[in-house]
Structures are given as structure tokens and as C-alpha cells.
């Protein structure tokens, strides 16, 4: 998948910048107003660093967000942007992407914005495969409204709205996206700049809907939500297409398919590297990606695969829709064609 220029790429059709841009070009004049230490800063910085590398024109970049702390993101990037209403960013972005084939369209959303009020728009954008790239900032909490539990909070979560503990099972955003026919699904972490850059670059280069879940720390209302990943016997499970799935400090652990068909964690040295499951992000059937998504903990997160779970080519909704639409380039011609339609066949003259 080439990054630009190719018809297959997510940025195909987006004009290239004439002179190289730098991160300052993507910094707006608005004061950034997240809490000190918020994970959103890291993602913003990475994003501003990554944008110039894409080589596209700044004015052809559009960022649409919903409402939430993370959804303030577009204000800070000097591109076209819209801070819309709660949960609706994928719908707005669908309109933008359908209307224009020359824009790089990003959606910024939170776990509440995307999965609570906005769940339906998200799953429909994914199944349609609209050419948009969705950054889902998952801090497992409602930040902006000051700390209620979210659809990704672990069961038993004590928050202002659940003083006796929340009682619902959280969504696994990756599983949900795969169940919704998503063509590109990935996960990364706010503070891992290189990984974030790599995943976001792949996501925007994917032609179609790309969902990127970003684990993001909210030091104010859910501090350390992802600290479990740093404990002993825990950690991120990096997924790399074509490579065996290994993790742990020295890659000493690995995933195998057991005799009963399930995936299990083993010590690599005990079973041998050749038995370790090789990741295949391009497999047409989403089942493997789904199985891998289940390696994520639903409670306190101690283990979680990161990287690209799935990345398959499928025509995009907006490309297919555009292919059905045509319009006379010349405006007089357009009007005369329309005159024909409006007049119709069954007329009489007085």
C-alpha cells in the first residue's frame, strides 16, 4: 500500500504540497487546554510531527471531531477542522469524504463519543468502508464531563455515576469494529511515539475506514488505567504482519493455536519459534483478527495486542458512490441536461 499517488492508497487524489511542510505548519494559534500530563498532548505532538511527512497539502486536510476532551484536537491543528457534536463525527466525516475525493479526512473521537452516543455511526462508517481515518482516544472514562464511567471502563468501576461500581461488561473496541466488518483495525498507545506514527501512517494510507484505538491516559479521572501493561508478566503484544506473535521483555512469550483451536500464550523456548502463530493482517476472513482482539483484558488491562489487527483491501463506499455520480463539467450543459429531466416525457403545450 503506497502512501500517496497510487489509486489504492488512502491519500490517492489528495494533492501534494509544493514545498515541504513542517510541524509548525500544523500548529494553530489556539492555546492547548488539556490538563497537565494528559495523554492527548502526546498524540497531538506525534500527529503534528507526522502530518508533514505525508507530503499532502495542508489545506486538503480535514479533521472532524465530536465532543469530549480529545475532541478539542482539531482546534490545535492548523488545517480545516470541525468540532461537531457528541457522537456524530463519523456521520459528518462521511459527508465530507463522499463530497470530496481530494481530502485527507481524519476523525477524532473518545471512548464515550465513539462507543457510547456515537456507536451506531461508528459501526456504520466501518461497514461502509468510508475513506476516513478514525483516532479513538480510549481513556476508559468520560473526561470532559468530569469522570463518569464509559463503555470501555472495566466492570466494577467506581465513578461519580457508579458509586457502588459499574455493572456492565465493557466493549472491546477492536472486537466491535471487526464485528462491524471494518477493513482496517489497529491499536496503539499515546506515549509510544514511534508506534503511534507507524500505525497512524498505515491507517491514513489505507483506502477505506481505518479505526485506530489509542490507549490514552487521563491523569485526572482515570490515572494509570494502562499502568497494568507495565507490570511484571504483562505488557503489550505487538502484532506485525508476517511475523510470529511474540511479547514479553525479551520476546520470551508467544501465541500458539492450541489443539482445541483456541489461541494460547506459551513460552517460546518451550514450544519452539516455529509453532508461534504468524500474524496475518491481510487475511480476508476477520476471524483471526477477532481472536487476537480477545487477548485484550476486559478488566484491568495487563495484556493487550497492539499494532494492526486487520488491513484488507475492499472498495470504499465513497469511491463506489462517486462512481455512480456524474455531472456535466460545463454549467450550461448541466442546466440543459437538468432542463430535460425537469421537462420529462409527458408534457402538453397550451
Amino acid at each position, binding site marked *: 500500500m503506497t502512501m500517496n499517488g497510487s489509486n489504492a492508497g488512502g491519500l490517492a487524489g489528495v494533492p501534494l504540497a509544493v514545498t515541504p511542510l513542517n510541524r509548525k505548519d500544523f500548529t494553530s494559534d489556539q492555546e492547548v487546554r488539556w490538563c497537565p500530563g494528559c495523554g492527548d498532548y502526546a498524540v497531538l505532538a506525534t500527529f503534528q510531527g507526522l502530518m508533514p511527512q505525508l507530503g499532502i497539502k495542508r489545506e486538503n486536510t480535514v479533521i472532524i471531531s465530536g465532543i469530549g476532551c480529545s475532541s478539542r484536537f482539531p482546534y490545535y491543528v492548523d488545517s480545516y477542522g470541525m468540532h461537531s457534536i457528541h457522537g456524530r463525527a463519523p456521520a459528518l466525516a462521511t459527508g465530507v469524504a463522499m463530497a470530496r475525493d481530494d481530502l485527507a479526512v481524519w476523525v477524532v473521537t473518545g471512548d464515550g463519543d465513539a462507543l457510547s452516543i456515537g456507536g451506531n455511526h461508528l459501526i456504520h462508517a466501518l461497514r461502509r468502508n468510508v475513506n476516513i481515518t478514525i483516532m479513538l482516544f480510549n481513556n476508559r472514562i468520560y473526561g470532559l464531563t468530569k469522570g463518569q464511567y464509559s463503555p470501555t471502563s472495566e466492570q466494577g468501576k467506581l465513578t461519580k455515576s457508579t458509586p457502588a461500581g459499574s455493572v456492565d461488561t465493557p466493549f472491546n473496541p477492536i472486537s466491535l469494529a471487526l464485528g462491524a466488518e471494518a477493513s482496517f483495525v489497529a491499536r496503539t498507545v499515546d506515549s509510544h511515539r514511534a508506534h503511534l506514527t507507524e500505525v497512524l501512517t498505515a491507517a491514513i494510507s489505507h483506502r477505506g475506514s481505518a479505526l485506530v484505538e489509542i490507549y490514552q491516559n487521563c491523569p485526572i479521572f482515570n490515572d494509570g488505567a494502562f499502568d497494568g501493561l507495565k507490570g511484571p508478566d504483562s505488557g503489550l503484544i505487538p502484532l506485525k504482519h508476517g511475523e510470529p506473535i511474540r511479547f514479553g521483555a525479551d520476546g520470551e512469550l508467544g501465541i500458539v493455536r492450541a489443539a482445541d483451536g483456541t489461541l494460547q500464550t506459551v513460552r517460546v523456548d518451550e514450544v519452539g519459534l516455529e509453532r508461534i502463530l504468524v500474524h496475518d493482517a491481510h487475511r480476508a476472513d476477520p476471524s483471526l483478527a477477532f481472536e487476537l482482539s480477545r487477548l485484550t483484558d476486559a478488566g484491568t488491562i495487563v495484556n493487550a495486542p497492539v499494532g494492526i489487527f486487520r488491513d484488507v483491501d475492499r472498495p470504499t463506499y465513497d469511491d463506489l458512490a462517486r462512481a455512480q455520480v456524474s455531472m456535466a463539467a460545463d454549467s450550461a450543459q448541466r442546466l440543459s441536461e437538468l432542463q430535460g429531466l425537469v421537462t420529462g416525457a409527458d408534457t402538453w*403545450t397550451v
Partner: protein
Amino acid sequence: MTDITTLDHVVIRFAGDSGDGMQLTGNRFTHETAVAGNDFSTLPNFPAEIRAPQGTVAGVSSFQLHFADFDIRTPGDAPNVLVAMNPAALRANLGELAKGGIIIADTSDFTARNLAKVGYASDPLTDGSLDGYQVYAFDLTAQTIAAVAELGLGRKDAVRTRNMYALGLLNWMYSRPVEPTLEFLAHKFAKNPSVRDANIAAVKAGHAFGETTELFATRYQIAAAPVPPGTYRQISGNRALAYGLMAGAAKAGLPLFLGAYPITPASDVLHILANAKQHGVTTFQAEDEIAAIGAALGASFAGNLGVTVTSGPGMALKSETIGLAVMLELPLIVVDVQRAGPSTGMPTKTEQADLTQALFGRHGEAPVPVIAAASPADCFEAAFEAARIAITYRTPVIVLTDGYLANGAEPWRIPDLASLPAIDPGFATEPNGPDGGFLPYARDAKLARAWAIPGTPELEHRVGGLEKADGTGAISYDPANHERMVGLRAAKVAGIAADLPHAVVDDPTGDARVLVVGWGSTYGPITAAARRVRLQGRAVATLHLRQVNPLPTGLGEILRSYERIVVPEMNLGQLAMVLRATYLVDARSYSRVRGLPISVGELAADLETIIDEELAKR
């Protein structure tokens, strides 16, 4: 020989089972009527169920056609002629037939079982209960079968052509030419010659039956109506609306983007526009009404003309996003094809009770222009006007039509698109700020803000739902700025009145004391009722509001110059409330909330009483 009586107008209703092809019959007869030069207005009426069980009252489908030698405004209250293809059709429609009206009934289905099914204890065709009407009952089905017998169709297919037999008969009765229908059938069934020939044979046989039988004492003719010269077509409100939107986009040079979620009676606008993709129209069937308007607003942000079409329940869902569009100050057209509410209500019935929702159904001070179409053909003008205002003023615009306009049809003098006014989107292409920056909320003389679309270099900017600083559009919590912006948004919408025709009263004699004010589809009944009242020698004034927000200049003076103001509405008095609040005049609601257009006869009679009351006060 049958006499030929000349009438000035007739209302015919075709009624049968959903599967009987009444809509097609009605439409064909309408077309012949149009070709004969009459003015006309039609109203189809579908059962609420997709396919209610055959032969039941719930399953009756009907089509009403009003045609005349003058310009008429409504499909008529009470039909003069009822064509009833079965007992259910008779049962369902008899109540509305004018006293002494004509009933043409196909006796074939009047079996004991079918009669019982719809609650007839005995056969009304023979038990004398229809004595007050002119009844023509005969076995139309059998006659049709006989007529098409030689064409080798199965019985079922043969029976299917009986609607064409009825059509042929009516053609004869009202002295219409059958040729256009024969041509139409030849074209429609070109691929299926036996069906084609059977239908053609049925039309001819029906016509011949009228000609040869002595059943019918009278034949009628209605002269052509005097209409301005031009090329005409028949058009329904939903189609006119779709074309108006397309014309608006074309005249502005913008692609048209429709985001919609199907809902009765608005779905056809989606269907029509989905068929017009070669004219630069993108349609998006969204997952719900919120996504539909969201995508439309996104498309507008990207430089299309974004439109969304729905009915009451969908309007309720769109409220929040309309509020966002108010804040973003982007063009957006929101069409509400009203139906009877509240809640799911009566989806296939008409009503005008979403006016206050259109005006006020948003949180905060969120003013939106509201345009209401007066007739099926006027939906074109209303939609075009909405496009002009939305684009020129960068504002969402609500267009109100209703089920009656949407499905009803009338003749339409086809406009010359080239001569419609151009619309200038006036995209910002260069910095407009003092320091070479871009001020997205800098305004022109009309208070419209600068609109730069993605892809325009140097004009990168962010918009959003938080209050905007005047000019810069940055987030602002400043109390004075908020008050200023609330005021500016209100002033912008109020200012549109300067750009619109002044209020015009229709008061031919100049001495009326009673003024009837309407909006939307009550235009038809009010105009027709006023005509009747005037024919009775009474003076009455009428005034129609195409634009409900802002109200037209000069309206207050007109209202204050009448002694009595009557506001007929298919709601509990929504416009009346607005007029009272705005002008402090005692506008009185004339409310009819029955899921049906206001009855011309009833309104005319009531107006006469009111006029006499006012005269008595002198």
C-alpha cells in the same frame, strides 16, 4: 343517444383493492385531462398497510382527481363520481360521495361473502340504500374478460386489465381522448405483447361499452381552462421539490448532496434524487436521520449543497444538528414533509402541525428561516428559494411541505431553468483579516459569514458548536460576545425579509372585513373557499405566507387593517399563535386536525357565517 352536459368541474374518485391498479388508472385519466386542457389537482390515498388483506376496508386504495375549466386549487372535498371496484371500495368511500353523486360499481365482487367481510348485511346495490345516488352497476369484470378473451391471457391476467376497462368507460363518459393512453400502454408493455394488447383491448372495450349501452343517460364535457401559454407537465410535490433542489444546486454551481433516511411520506424525494445521479446528485441513505443530516452538513462544509429530507419523527431527531448548523453558519436545507402526529401518529395522513417545531424546536436561541410550499408545483419554488437563502446567508433553512402536497399532483408550467436567477456561493478564496489572516466569522452586508471550503490554501480554520468569537470564530466564553453573536444570528435571519417580496393581500373588492391567512398547503382550500364565498357575493380577503420565518415586510399593517383575521390550519393554531405574538392582532385559529386537507365546502360555509357576523356588527 346520450346527452352531452357541460360541467365546469368534476371530482372523480377511483377506488379498489391495493392490487387493482387504481393509482395507474387515476394517473392516466389525469394525463388525458391535462391534454384536454383542464386544470386539475389529484390526491392519491394509500392504505396504511403495505398489502392489507384483499377485499377489506383497510386495503382500499383510491385516487381522487378534480378537473375543471378554471384554475382550481384542491383535489376537491366530496367526489361527484365514485368508481368502486368491490364492496370494500364502496364501503370505504361512500360516506364522502356528494349527495346525488354517480356510483359506477363492478358487481363481480359483490358476493355474499365479500359483502359480509366489510359489514354489509345485504347488497347495497340492490337493497335500495343507494337510492339517493345515480348507480351504474354491472359486471365490469366479466365484460373485461369477455373483451380480452381472444388474446389468450389467463383469467388472472385478464381480470387485471379491468382497471383499463373502467378507464375506457370514464374516457367516454367525460369525453376524453383515449389515444394518449393507448400509446402509453403500447410503450409500457412493449416487452409483453399479450398484456399490452389485452390492456389496449380493455380500454377500447370500456369506451365502446359507454358508446353502445343505453345504461348511461348523460355524457359530460368540461372545457379547457384558460391558462398562461407554455409547456406543461403534471407534477407531484415530492418530485417538484427534488427538481427545485437540483435547480438550486445547478444555479449555484454546486454538487447536490442528499442525506436521507426513508420515512413516509418523504421517501420519494430520496428515490427521485437517487435516480438523478447523472446530474451531479449524490444520495446517501444513512443509518438514521441524525447521520443523514450530519452527512449533509459535512458535505456542505466540504462545498456541496447539503440537503436532508424527512418527516416529523425524523425532524425531531435532527434538532440537535440543525442547532450545530446554526452555529457553524453553513448552508443546509432540511425538508420536513409533514404527516399526522404526534409520535408515529397516522403516517399516511397529512397535517401541518410541525410548524412550531420548525420555528422553535431547538435548544438555545437558534433562529432558522422557514419556507412552506403552497401547492405540489410550488414545492419547486420553495426548494429553489431555500437553496438561494441557505447559500446566500450561510444558514440552515427548513422547508415544510406535507403528505397532501407530496403525493398530490397538478399541472405545472415547466420553468426555463436558464432564466432562473443565478445563486452565488461566494466562496472565500483569499485572506480577509487585517493581518493577512482569515476571519471565518467576518460578515458581509447581509451578515453572511465568509465561507472557505477545504482545499483553499491559506484559509485553514476550525468551526464548531461552542460559541464563537465575533470575526475570528475562536472559542469564546465572553458574556458580551455571546450576547452579540446571539443577536447577530437573529438579525441575519430577520434580515432575509429585506430580500423577499412584501406581504400581499388578495382583496378584489377592497372592502372585505374578514382576512383569511394561511401558510403551506391550506393555500388550496383557502383560495377555493374564497372563490366560493365571493361567488356568493360576499367580500373576503386572503393572504398566503410562503415564508413563515422571517415574516414578510408589511404583514402587520395588512393584518391590522381587517376586522377579523381567520387562520385555517391543520393544527391547533400554530401560525395563529405566531401572528398574535408578533403583531398583537386577534388572529383566530380555524383548526381542523383530521389528517385530511381542510374541506373547501366547510371552510366556505364557515367563512360566510363569520363574514355575516362581522357585517352584523356594523
